[in-house]
């Protein structure tokens, strides 16, 4: 149940079941199978619909848009999420505009998959979590891979609906085992899911006994879960971790109901601080639960600077377990 492999199998299933699915991306063909090997084997099985492209992120997105307008289901891979910048125009001014500006006479369900995130020493241009800049692009869904969400369920949702979506896959998730809820548990944590693209909630004890809510996605959710588990066991600090798949637009209901119980919220993300994912959470929660919080919402994000290559310097910039733990302690 390695995430990269499960994701590859999901794509294989999509290609098999749905003739409309087309994969595009740099170096995705066999034998290489993509920089992170997610698409390995797929071009051999589906040579017409799995296409290695030139190094042309703008055109990859733009051709995907055309495919989608024509009724196909393109899934474009961005080798490093840092290069989403080169797709920004297609995402903002083409893909997400077409359906609405054409008065629903067309749909443009492009799926963009991007390998994001740091902690690998790849340096300033190969380590970023730039998804925050795509939050709030009208008519764009942003969804984050996590170990608690079955990519099959996620892609079934993508392919069932007609909206464009940006799917961010933190690089450090690829080699991890998926830890899907089983019988209401993930390891020693109680797991509850709600929604079509479920928001997963994890806690060692029932929500009523938690003193802080933690909102996180992707790899940071995985880090947070380990901390939530450890603090519960070792120190009886009880937090409820909320892990949405879809991070924009957000379904705030699960967050609000958790914070209604705990009256304290920490948000966690690896992207740079300032106008980040958590800022909107803080804005919404501060408004919706005005006067009921015990303390201000704590937005944990990375330092707003370049991501250094040196291991020590990179760790000092990016959010990791230490920052998450400190924030949970403060807020509990």
């Amino acid at each position, binding site marked *: 149940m390695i995430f990269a492999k499960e994701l590859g199998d999901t794509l294989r299933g999509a290609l098999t079941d749905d003739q409309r699915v*087309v994969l595009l991306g740099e170096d995705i063909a066999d034998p290489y199978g993509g920089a992170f090997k997610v698409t390995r084997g797929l071009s051999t099985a589906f040579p*017409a*619909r799995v*296409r290695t*492209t*030139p190094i*042309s992120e*703008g*055109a990859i*997105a*733009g*051709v*995907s*848009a*055309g*495919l*989608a*307008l*024509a*009724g*196909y289901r*393109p899934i474009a891979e961005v080798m490093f999420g840092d290069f989403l910048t080169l797709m920004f*125009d*297609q995402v903002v*001014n*083409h893909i997400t*505009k*077409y359906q*609405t*500006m*054409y*008065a*629903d*006479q*067309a*749909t443009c369900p492009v799926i963009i998959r991007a390998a994001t995130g740091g902690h690998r020493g790849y340096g300033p241009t190969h380590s970023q979590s730039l998804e925050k800049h795509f939050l709030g692009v009208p008519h764009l869904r942003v969804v984050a891979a996590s170990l608690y969400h079955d990519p099959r369920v996620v892609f079934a949702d993508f392919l069932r609906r007609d909206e464009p979506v940006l799917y961010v896959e933190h690089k450090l998730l690829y080699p991890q085992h998926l830890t899907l809820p089983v019988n209401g548990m993930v390891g020693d944590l109680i797991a509850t899911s709600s929604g079509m693209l479920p928001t997963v909630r994890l806690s060692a004890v029932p929500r009523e006994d938690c003193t802080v809510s933690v909102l996180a996605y992707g790899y940071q959710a995985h880090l947070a879960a380990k901390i939530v588990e450890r603090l519960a066991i070792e120190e009886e600090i009880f937090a409820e971790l909320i892990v949405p798949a879809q991070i924009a637009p957000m379904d705030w209901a699960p967050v609000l109901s958790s914070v209604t119980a705990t009256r304290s919220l920490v948000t966690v993300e690896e992207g740079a601080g300032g106008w980040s994912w958590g800022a909107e959470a803080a804005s919404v929660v501060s408004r919706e639960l005005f006067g009921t919080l015990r303390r201000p919402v704590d937005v944990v994000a990375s330092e707003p600077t370049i991501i250094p290559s040196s291991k020590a310097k990179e760790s000092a910039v990016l959010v990791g377990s230490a920052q998450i733990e400190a924030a949970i302690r403060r807020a509990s």
Partner: protein
Amino acid sequence: MSTALAPARTDERLTGVPGEPLDHRRYRRMRFIRRFEETLLQLFEEGALNGTTHACIGQEADAVAVTEHLTEGDHIFSNHRCHGHYLAHSGDALGLMAEIMGKEAGVCRGLGGSQHICAPGFKSNGVQGGIVPNAAGIALANQLSGNDAVSVVFIGDGTLGEGVVYETLNMASLWKLPLLVVCEDNRWAQSTPIAANMAGSFPGRFSAFGVPVRSVDSTDVAEISQAAGQEIAAVRAGEGPRVLLIHTYRLCHHSKSDDERPEQEIAERWLVEPLVVHGRRLSDSDRLRIDDEVETALGEVVATARALP
């Protein structure tokens, strides 16, 4: 995917009367576009319209010639200067007029306006260059579906400044996509003459990517149509992407009232504009009759559009 809001509303007096000679039909269709654009500019001056518009006066032959060879299933992607392409494609004067007037009956319910049009087989967008990969994606869809439909994209000379055009030419050529790029070189991009915008070789911009280019230096609809027919047939036959490069001229200002080009240059081009060039093939009386029919039909369109909620 596409679900039309309403069938395109056409009027034979604008789009061609059954049985009339091809020369008449072509003249009529160009005249229709010309007068639509002129009417629009007049409405703008009256203050009856909101926003902006880019008229294609002088370039009508391109739209009429290219669309003659397109058929059900083919697709046009157009740019900011899309009215002629759209009208030649659909004949839907009322839908476009209502759209530009911002009315609910507009082809995109007034959401898109002049530059953002969608109807079966047709789309446009106002961002230079980005529509080229979009059209290539439609071509790829056709290729995957195994049909022989053609995806056509119209761009201007200035749009060759945008890098994504080259990214797409490369991909389309590598994958032999059934894509026709129609490049309307009207010598200017907004206020910038082509010499300040383009270095090197115009056809070389395409042939460097292995995409054959057919250049036509003409405002004659018949000549352009012949070239377009051959290019579209080649694309339809699966020979891969091709470019039809039409050297033409824009007679009006770029958008509403911005024109600083040499008057002499413009005056010379009025002497060889498509209606003059092709109009010679018709008798004076036929021309006048068609002009009249177009005028009446367009007048009705405007009146109807004005009365729309």
